């Protein structure tokens, strides 16, 4: 059973940012194939600022870290990913509120809330070749409770991301390409994969 501290929440944002910065070009390339080629730029701009914010602030709660993260992402990213990641962190922060300690169950429910918020904001369901395709199985996996470990988390997220390759997009810019969207991994799913990879890292370090 894992618990998340405010400090770990900050580390999560930092590690996510590190992954995004070093994969900035790759994210952009993925978006060039089936979108408008700015996903790497968007994520890099947003997480750079989010990490700057949370690294330089003091937090008592995980909710507090997520709230600031949400605000920065929402006001720095723009595009489709800004409101979606912003909503995700906002919903998590709202659910966790001032909880002094976050249990695994809390966290699983928070992610579920995030997923629902994103689905509503983006009017997207699973299988439409968006980041939802990663968040959905990850939320299910976390809810599951038993056998939740870092390695498994990465596996679930990675598989889900890879899975977007074979689908035809019906939401987001890739939908304009119709059948031509097939054969390419969804960029937003990839950035979401980095987010959960970073989370797994945080967990591993915490063990």
């Amino acid at each position, binding site marked *: 059973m894992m618990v998340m501290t405010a400090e770990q929440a900050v580390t999560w944002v930092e590690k996510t940012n590190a992954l995004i910065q070093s994969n900035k070009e790759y994210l952009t390339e993925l978006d*060039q194939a089936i979108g408008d*080629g*700015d996903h790497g*730029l968007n994520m890099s701009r947003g997480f750079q600022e989010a990490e700057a914010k949370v690294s330089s602030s003091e937090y008592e709660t995980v909710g507090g870290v997520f709230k600031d993260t949400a605000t920065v992402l929402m006001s720095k990213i*723009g*595009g489709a*990913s*800004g409101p979606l990641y912003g909503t995700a962190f906002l919903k998590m922060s709202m659910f966790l509120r001032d909880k002094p300690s976050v249990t695994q169950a809390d966290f699983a429910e928070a992610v579920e809330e995030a997923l629902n918020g994103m689905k509503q904001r983006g009017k997207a369901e699973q299988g439409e070749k968006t980041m939802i395709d990663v968040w959905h199985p990850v939320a299910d996996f976390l809810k599951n409770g038993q056998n939740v470990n870092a390695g498994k988390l990465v596996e679930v997220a990675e598989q889900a991301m890879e899975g977007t390759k074979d689908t035809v997009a019906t939401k987001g*810019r890739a939908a304009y390409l*119709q059948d031509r969207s097939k054969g390419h991994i969804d960029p937003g799913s990839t950035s979401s994969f980095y987010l959960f990879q970073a989370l797994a890292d945080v967990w591993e370090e915490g063990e």
Partner: protein
Amino acid sequence: MKKVINNPEDVVREMLEGMTLAYPEQVRNLEDTTVLVRKDAPVAGKVAIVSGGGSGHEPAHAGYIGRGMLDAAVAGEMFTSPTPDQVIEAIRAVDSGQGVFLVIKNYTGDVMNFEMAREMAEAEGISVEQVVVNDDVAVEDSSFTTGRRGIAGTVFVHKIAGAKAAAGGSLKEVKEAAEKVVANTRSMGVALSPCTIPGAGKPNFQLEDDEMEVGIGIHGEPGTKREKIAPADDIAEELLQKVLEDSVDFDKSEVAVMVNGLGATPESELFIVNRYIHSKLREKSINVTHTFVGEYMTSLEMAGFSITLMKVDEEIKQLLDAEAVAPAFHR
């Protein structure tokens, strides 16, 4: 990538500074934002019109700020919808108490960011209405997907909504007029060359010397299909066919035509396309009442163009003819 820029991250800010310096009598930049508003905003007693979106479409959207058109334009990063905090600044700055009307192009990002701002504004007690422009017939409309994109037809929405507001129309009336435009406007575009986002360093796709990308949007994204390049008349015919075949019944109607350059196409070529469109529409007994040829909604330095047809009635014609005094649109 060859560009007349300094740092890629500074492009939008420096562009907005350059715009504000170019039109000091017409626009002002809300401090610490990417919002340009009419110098005299808020205009008392008038519904305010706010538009915006990613940058890279200049003169859209700030070029349409002025009497009879927009009250504010919100600029995002290149090809990236602006964030809700920027949009809400615009809404607050231009509301005169008569409400604010948002013109949004149909992209997931734009819709979400503008709607979030709208929710915040409404929570503050500002009346807000909106229209989502989706004129691009290259993409099939469907309630299961994102649907059609908003492209150059958006400028017609700016014009009509702006004129309606200037004429004293209520928020509801402005919305109705804008919805009429959206319901009656269809566009389609083609690219002869790609374009490059400053920060990305390379274009989204490559075209051979004899290829063109048909059904292109305005964000440098690939189109719906790739074809061999053809004579101007054939390209124009292909686009016109798709526009006419779509869900608006243009038969024997009156229309306004826009031939919009995407960035690098010489104006002479746009006129050659215009010539074909006019002659073809005459053949079909479709009567052209207004024509707009030029760069209205660009995609950075992309070569190519889009054509737009808006079916007009007496009200729309009158609103099209109404005064508009914006840096990029005069009437």
